[in-house]
């Protein structure tokens, strides 16, 4: 009978228990070591195969709510892209993105005087699939200017854009969520994928093939941000929260076990 009582725990106890468990490693870091998965290694390797001067389109969702999940990935990726000499196009796909991109690029240590030469940021517009297709087919039929309202044809301010017209000018797409399949279907460009765990991981599986593509590697939120930081060597926020993640999952297992024990108790009680 005692076991059966386990099934009637007030949810608030579970919430409080979990919150305390999460707080402990945030206050006193334990330092549980981390391993880097193959998908993350492939992500870094693929980016590193391109020569300096290659053009990468980064589809930046930058939803402010998701930042704890993805900010480490964004920062480490931009550091890596700029260190490898990529020319980077930044497509803002979320309403918060214009605000977030500034924070992220600052954290990545970007030289803003190189805007227009090394990187270009497009303005934010709400984009459905059809809009993505238009954008890849002809950038100028979708955007007239960049996010600071400078015309895309202005050679003084945006020299980078003078060589880029459509998807044939991209060498690599760093894409997120469902856009990935879109770029694959319409353009067949090489893709590495980044994004929140839930917005990326369920979609990426079918397209992921480190040898033939179209997705050569991916980093999907959660703990993988920390893995990317280790793989690239740019250590940041991602690695700090790993302890809390480990302890949280152990607690989850304990909660599930308690739930099952209570079911066992109820069955025993039923027999009596």
């Amino acid at each position, binding site marked *: 009978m005692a076991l059966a009582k386990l099934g009637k725990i007030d949810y608030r106890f579970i919430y409080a228990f979990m919150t305390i468990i999460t707080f402990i490693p945030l206050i006193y870091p334990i330092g549980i070591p981390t391993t880097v998965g193959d998908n993350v290694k492939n992500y870094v390797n693929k980016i590193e195969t391109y020569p300096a001067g290659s053009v990468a389109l980064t589809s930046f969702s930058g939803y402010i709510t998701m930042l704890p999940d993805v900010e480490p990935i964004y920062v480490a990726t931009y550091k890596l892209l700029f260190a490898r000499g990529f020319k980077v196009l930044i497509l803002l796909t979320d309403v918060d993105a214009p605000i977030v991109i500034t924070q992220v690029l600052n954290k990545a240590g970007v030289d803003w005087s190189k805007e227009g030469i090394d990187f270009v940021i497009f303005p934010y517009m709400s984009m459905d699939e059809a809009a993505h297709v238009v954008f890849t087919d002809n950038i100028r039929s979708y955007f007239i200017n960049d996010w600071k309202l400078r015309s895309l044809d202005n050679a003084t301010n945006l020299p980078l854009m003078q060589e880029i017209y459509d998807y044939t000018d991209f060498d690599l797409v760093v894409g997120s969520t469902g856009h990935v399949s879109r770029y694959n279907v319409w353009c067949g460009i090489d893709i590495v994928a980044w994004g929140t765990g839930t917005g990326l991981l369920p979609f990426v599986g079918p397209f992921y093939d480190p040898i033939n593509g179209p997705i050569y590697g991916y980093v999907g939120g959660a703990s993988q941000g920390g893995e990317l930081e280790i793989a690239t060597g740019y250590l940041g926020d991602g690695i700090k929260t790993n302890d809390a993640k*480990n302890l949280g999952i152990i607690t989850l297992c304990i909660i*599930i076990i308690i739930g099952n024990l209570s079911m066992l108790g109820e069955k025993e009680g039923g027999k009596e």
Partner: protein
Amino acid sequence: MASRNFIRRDLPLILVALTAFPILLNRFVTDDLLKNYWTTLGSWTSYISMIAWGLGVIYLFNGEYHALQMNKDKGIVPYLMFGILVGFSLLLVGMSILYADWTTMQLGIRHESYVWWYNGFYGAQSQAFYGLMFLYLMSASYRMLRFRNLEASILLLSGVIYTLRNTPIFNLYFPWMMPLGEWINNIGYTGGYNAALICMAFGSLLVGCRQLLGRERTAVEVTA
């Protein structure tokens, strides 16, 4: 009556089909005209949805005002809530105008003061709301993830094993967790997912067929 039905019901249905068919044709025929048609419509989607967004604002305030009227007798709380909503909205509008750059006609929504309010109130709170999902998943796992029968057991095992595979510490101390998790992902997940995807495609395409043949009338108003 007949002409009324035609204008209210049939003409919109025809418009749907007329808009869609050139897009389908564009898939199989390479033609500049068709392509231009598709790319023009593609950029229109963004414009239409941006313009229509104002409706949301109207429904928001209308809905909240209605709720205030319904809950008038419940003391000061409903008034306070409505006040917070209106006050904050005005604050943001005010700031966007105050910090606007009128030479380029850009509203001040990227100004650092605006961003300060945005990040402080919206950023923290929306993250906390999403974070609640984790705690709610805990209570739901406690309630639902049990070895009740074979199906529930499979759900539980796939879920737990893959969760552990995603957790750094388990990968380190139980290296077999990674390949096992991947196996379940490749076999169990893909097996079910493929079937679900195919059927979902069929279901959606069926709705599409009915719509284009003029039989799906859910979206058109006849009587109102």
